[in-house]
């Protein structure tokens, strides 16, 4: 296989084969051939994705007294005049450290498209794959060289990844946080001594072989990076057994909860963006039971993460965002369930200087439409980008030469930046 377009980008040699691709920029962007250089920033992102479409009414935007509430009550939060669902009491008690957006809106009501839109800030197309927010961060932020990648995704096999940005910004996937990093531990028959002997043998054989070309050298580098990782303290970031049992308990035993704990550890070790996914929110049926169950997991893990970050002094440099691909219908369906509802839904965020206790926008009295201050998904991405210090003036180009910026044409929510 020849140099694929993704490899080309990864190796940074777009003009290697004498191609002079002329860049073309939208009117309001900076013209020129330069791609943005990575910039040193201090803020990290933990994005918690509620997969399936989290019902906004049953969580962040209750309408007490209205028929649309079903069996769920509301309760007062730490913020005067703001109520959350009674299914999230711990989060409600910490709402003064969070900002709430209740006027999110999307046009995508199908899972794949909605998920893609929320993760990348762009509409899904057949002809290109856009990078997710974490890939943008990995691309735009100067990372200190170390053993860990800038971007890790926990618990989501179908994640859109880095799209056209290719391997250079690809997230490291972790399937089950309780199992650590896949393939990072030696086979049980291979102890450290034997592993050392193997490496010695391999090195000796390669040293008497043909001199390595650039491509082979890159492969050898990846291998030595992997070996360094295995022996480094950074690998310990993936080992949850090093946490106190009490801490693990505090988050909860669900994989998502342990994933949140791993996210904190990874950020401590220099990872700049972590996505953690909690599924099961697609409550067309069995709604009350399942949403209660999901909220129980969420209401334990998220507050634990927020407290943990604050206790370690990491809250000022870590932005935690909780989102979903869309909300759910206020009006119940024939099975007492709620269906997909992108017209209005909610997002909550905390940390990194986001003003606590702020509520942006509102839905109408039955949570059926945006009543004030509409925030689109690109607007959300623009807001996060602003909080993280990501440049949006110089576009990054896909291998086909199309220009993209993080957050597309979104406008940052001024109250939050």
């Amino acid at each position, binding site marked *: *296989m*020849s*140099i*694929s*377009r*993704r490899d*080309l980008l990864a190796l940074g040699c777009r003009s290697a*084969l004498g*191609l002079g*691709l*002329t860049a*073309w920029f939208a009117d309001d962007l900076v013209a020129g051939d330069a791609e943005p250089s990575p910039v040193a920033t201090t803020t990290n992102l933990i994005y918690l994705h509620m997969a399936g479409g989290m019902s906004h009414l049953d969580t962040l935007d209750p309408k007490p007294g209205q028929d649309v509430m079903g069996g769920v009550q509301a309760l007062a939060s730490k913020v005067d005049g703001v109520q959350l669902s009674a299914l999230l009491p711990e989060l409600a008690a910490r709402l003064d450290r969070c900002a709430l957006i209740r006027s999110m809106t999307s046009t995508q009501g199908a899972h*794949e498209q909605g998920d893609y839109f929320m993760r990348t800030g762009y509409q899904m*197309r*057949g*002809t*290109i*794959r856009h990078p997710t927010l974490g890939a943008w961060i990995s691309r735009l932020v100067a990372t200190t060289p170390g053993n860990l990648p800038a971007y890790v995704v926990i618990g989501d*096999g*179908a994640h859109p990844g880095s799209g056209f940005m*290719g*391997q250079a910004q*690809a997230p*490291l*996937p972790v*399937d*089950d946080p309780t*199992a650590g*990093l*896949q*393939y990072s*531990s030696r*086979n049980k028959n291979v102890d450290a001594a*034997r592993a050392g*002997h*193997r490496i010695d*043998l*391999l090195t000796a*054989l*390669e040293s*008497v072989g043909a001199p390595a*070309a*650039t*491509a*082979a050298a*890159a*492969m050898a*580098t*990846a*291998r030595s*990076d*992997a070996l360094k*990782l295995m022996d480094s303290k950074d690998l310990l970031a993936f080992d949850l057994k090093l946490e106190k049992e009490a801490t693990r308990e505090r988050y909860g035993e669900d994989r998502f909860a342990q994933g949140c704990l791993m996210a904190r550890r990874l950020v401590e070790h220099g990872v700049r963006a972590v996505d953690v996914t909690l599924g099961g929110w697609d409550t*067309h049926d*069995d709604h009350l039971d399942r949403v209660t169950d999901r909220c129980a997991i969420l209401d334990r893990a998220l507050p634990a993460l927020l407290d943990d970050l604050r206790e370690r002094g990491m809250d000022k440099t870590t932005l935690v965002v909780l989102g979903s691909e869309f909300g759910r219908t206020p009006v119940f369906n024939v*099975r007492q369930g709620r269906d997909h509802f992108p017209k209005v839904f909610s997002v909550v965020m905390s940390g990194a200087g986001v003003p606590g206790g702020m509520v942006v926008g509102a839905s109408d009295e039955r949570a059926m439409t945006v009543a004030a201050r509409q925030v689109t998904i690109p607007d959300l991405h623009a807001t996060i980008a602003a909080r993280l210090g990501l440049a949006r003036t110089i576009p990054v180009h896909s*291998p*086909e*030469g*199309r220009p993209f910026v993080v957050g597309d044409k979104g406008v940052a929510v001024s109250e939050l930046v």
Partner: protein
Amino acid sequence: MPLRVWPVAVLVVVLISWPEAPPVALRSGLDVAAITQWSTRLDALVDARLARLGRAAPPVASDDVFLRRAWLDLAGRGPTRAEAEVFLTDSAPQRRARLIDGLVSSPAYLSRQFNWWADLLRVQSRLQDRLPGQPWAVWLKEQLAANTPYDRLVTAMLTATGPALAPGNGATGWRLRDAGMPLDHLAITMRTFLGTDFGCAQCHDHPYEKWTRLEFYQLAAYDHGVDLNKSTKGLGNGKQLKEKVANEPPEVRNMVRELTRGLYSSVSGNGAGKITLPVDWKQDGGAPGDSATAAVPFGTSPATTSKHTAAAFAAWVTAPDNPRFARLIANRMWQQAFGTGLIEPIDRFGDDAQGSEPALLSAVAELVVASGFDLQVVQRVLRRTNAYGRAAVDDSEPVLPRRRALTAEQVWDSLAVMVEGAPEGQAATSTAATDFYAQHQKLDADELLDLAKTMVDARSDQRQVRKQLDQARRKGPKADIPALETRLAKLEATADPLDLRPDGPGGAVRRASDLPQPAPPGHPMRVLGQSDRLLPDNGSTAPTVPQALLLLNGLVDNAVLRADVAMAKDLDAAPSEAERVRRAFRWILVREPTAAELGVLGPGPRDRRAWADVVWALINHTEFRFLP
């Protein structure tokens, strides 16, 4: 299946058959003499270029290099030691040509070509929205086995209509791949078969090529209206089904949805010849709501009968005088053989579509047409050149073989062959999905519901049996395993006729072409860079840390180093330590050890552990990861 448990041996059984490869059929009068003439002509052009560049041709590659290169390139894997011996003991002067011809007629070649096509066409076993993709994969394999000419292959995909699961209708997969997105589909079609970067023009006049948005829509007019049809008219009353199903539990409802997708998805429409310009139209040549008539942006306009324009579009794309159709496949074939295309990027031809060596590309394009679009002939011609047989280089000079990293499939299949011996020909019925369709296409709402319930029960039984099987494999009793596997296989037919799931019986290691397309996220092949099949040519050969970890810690120890695998048995049977070392190098690096390497290894003897370490080292050697 927990992602961390991916021992190679416990993987996927996919019910795909490899029809017996027919004897090499020569077309268009291109006999061996003609093929040789073509190779000579291409060599002359290659040598002329090298002379012009003032670049000395590299020496002829050694036999070992040629052997390994040809096998990986054409068969998609390394040879077994026995397979390698066939070439090495052939003393005829034309043995390299014989090797090439033999490989092109082998089942291994079909497997490798399938991987290449699947990557290009974005083949998935399960398309979006639960549409079945296996019929497409099966159809493609059948075409490859029959050596269907390339132009007819493309025409079939561009014009296929009818039910997705009707026997022989797998070509509908191309259109279904982009169901509901006809404009994106056009952009991808233009790129895949005509090397034309039309995609930008979907929304605005192309920023740096000459295509306008109007031209895009005029081209889209040919296929307008051809798309996925989900009508359940065959059921008599779709509303009735909805009502019946409304009160069923979620598993049954989901199963009904899955069944209706499979049984009733079809491609319908013949092409309207006209298309309405969208409401956001701002470009020249029309206004929002205007009707645009079908027209082509280059080449000769095809004859159309109005309202059946999809066939006209296909005829235009595949015409021998279409300036890009033959040139693009020529470019792709060249890149497959040499590693760098004569035009790069491979499928973005730009305005002039000449590339770095116009005479050479034109000659290969001429060959494509002269062969009747017989790609096996084209591949034989390319690999019988002197150019192909030279030592590799590390730069991207297109007329010299480039030393490039193996694809995920090539690495996987090379390891598979160490485990299984020659792993092709693990035949099983391929017609499960289409048989099911034939049996069940005339159901009414009640029958469909009953069928769904049966399948739901079968799946739940399947889960139970899988658990028991897992238990038996891990803790025993081993004697239970065969009976459980049989039960599982029987249940498979009831539970999963439309889909092919992992964990079937057997546990043999399959080649990449026999696994789900693509392998699931987290599978070793995905870690090795296999395409996610979301875009054409989306595989990656860039090295990554997870890949390195996989080979350092996972795959090799768990699968290849077991004592009962084909390579281990061959090594065990070696009569001496020295011969054993020789055999290990033969299997893995397909060559003899050098004196220096023998020095590093020492004379032995080695115990089993030490042997495992030697094998481990050879597989982790960077040389293993590259085409020589």
